[in-house]
């Protein structure tokens, strides 16, 4: 009975293989009747404001390895993610419209999704970086965002020893903290209904064209994580610009604001201008930023509240140099936070 013998041999081999895979903790069985209880997760390629920074790939793989090591996630292979992005002609991950997120999730068999946008990467004076992580659940709802800002001097020990010398060292240094933030983001409980805000691109400072996008991304993150709002997907907002025929925010109109809000479901619109930004140059020249923001009622197109903040990394709260902030993105976040607090946002009023 050669056929029965072959079947027995195949079953035994399959069982042995499954047992070996389970023991190694690398089971990749999926689909109905899956034995794998780990959370499926796709970490999209990191992209960002800074072109030509190869170390973003290193940042992504450091995070992926850290997440894999927790044993709680089944990380989708990078090649599969890349081919899905290519198949749907998705090039810019930072401004994924909701539709694209849904298509991508369906293509990848509905995993959780993690994106990373590099807001700032610089190693001219010392390795300094900031990456904004955003997570989506398998249904395409955004779970939230985390701002991961790091500077070599902050990663060194109390005696200023062991400061990372390269960006790759910078990613790897405090990787555990980074992984914890990502896990926290993915496993966070669903949020209830929140007022939806569309964050328009800020007018950039004249000599820093990237500053408008940077400020808008950080403002959106703060609104979402600290000021109880839901932020419309930047990609949806860009699509709505096209639909409302908005060519320039400088010549925006009430009708267009209303149309924009209708297309994104935003009750409020936030607009701002970066008046001045200086990313700093280490001790002796801390980062500096000045900006204004206005919150509009999307229905009437009228300003409701306005905020103004300027902040330097060595401001008055610093005593004898302790507490100085030399990270340009956390300095920007501090300025935005202060402006939001002063604005007394309408949904936060008691």
């Amino acid at each position, binding site marked *: 009975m050669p056929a029965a013998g072959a079947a027995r041999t195949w079953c035994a081999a399959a069982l042995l293989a499954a047992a070996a895979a389970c023991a190694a903790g690398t089971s990749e069985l999926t689909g109905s009747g899956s034995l794998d209880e780990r959370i499926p997760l796709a970490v999209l390629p990191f992209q960002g404001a800074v072109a030509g920074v190869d170390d973003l790939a290193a940042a992504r793989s450091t995070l992926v390895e850290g997440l894999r090591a927790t044993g709680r996630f089944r990380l989708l292979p990078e090649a599969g993610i890349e081919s899905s992005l290519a198949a749907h002609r998705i090039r810019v991950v930072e401004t994924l419209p909701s539709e694209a997120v849904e298509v991508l999730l369906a293509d990848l068999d509905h995993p959780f999704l993690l994106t990373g946008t590099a807001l700032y990467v610089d190693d001219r004076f010392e390795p300094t970086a900031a990456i904004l992580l955003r997570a989506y659940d398998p249904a395409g709802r955004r779970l939230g965002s985390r701002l991961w800002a790091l500077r070599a001097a902050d990663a060194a020990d109390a005696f200023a020893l062991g400061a990372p010398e390269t960006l790759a060292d910078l990613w790897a240094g405090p990787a555990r903290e980074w992984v914890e933030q990502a896990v926290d983001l993915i496993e966070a409980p669903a949020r209830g209904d929140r007022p939806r805000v569309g964050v328009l691109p800020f007018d950039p400072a004249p000599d820093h064209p990237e500053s408008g996008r940077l400020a808008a991304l950080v403002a959106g993150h703060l609104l979402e994580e600290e000021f109880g709002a839901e932020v419309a997907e930047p990609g949806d907002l860009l699509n709505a610009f096209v639909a409302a025929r908005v060519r320039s925010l400088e010549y*925006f109109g009430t009708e267009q604001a209303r149309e924009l809000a209708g297309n994104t479901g935003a009750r409020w619109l936030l607009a701002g201008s970066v008046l001045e930004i200086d990313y700093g140059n280490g001790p002796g020249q801390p980062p500096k930023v000045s900006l*204004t923001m206005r919150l509009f009622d999307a229905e009437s197109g009228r300003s409701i509240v306005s905020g103004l903040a*300027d902040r330097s990394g060595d401001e008055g709260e610093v005593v004898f140099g302790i507490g100085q902030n030399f990270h340009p993105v956390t300095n920007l976040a501090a300025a935005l936070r202060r402006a939001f607090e002063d604005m007394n946002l309408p949904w936060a009023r008691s």
Partner: protein
Amino acid sequence: MRATTRRILPALLLAGLAAACSTPSQVVYLHPLADLSLIKRIAVMPLGNLSSNTEAHQWVRQILNHELLVQGIFETVEPWEVNRVLLEKQIPQDGIPSLSPEQLAELGQELGAQAFLVGDVLQFEQGRYGNLTAPEIGLSLRLLDVETGIVIWSATASKSGIGFTERLVGANGPDLTAATSELVRNLLSTLST
């Protein structure tokens, strides 16, 4: 005689220090027949720029809009509405002062404003005082009645030099934004009195 010198010398020193320190100045004109309480809504027009900072007028206009909204003296037309209407009517950004009273009235009607705030940035830079820096700002603002084109209110203010406290502790003066914001706030406060 010695006692008198002891009393006068510190006073002279203090007066000298004060003279060398920050010098804010302000001149305000209000039309004798103007009733500002009748004005509810104004439009902040693009400002002229006579300073060496090419972006100063944009910067100050942003701060003006912010302070007007915060102080709530008048309702303001959204800056993007102002820009859009100026573009539609092909009026250059610095063309408001040269408009005829009829054109002003038409523009006012279009924007739903009873007055236009116009003006110039005269000076806008960080001055150097030895090792220290401090802002040097000069502003001139006018409120025009859209019906007649008459100047209802006019104010010029400047702020320069380093403050006494900063000089004493060897610290820099405030940033340009903070100093501009304070100057604008002080100027606008003369509208509500």
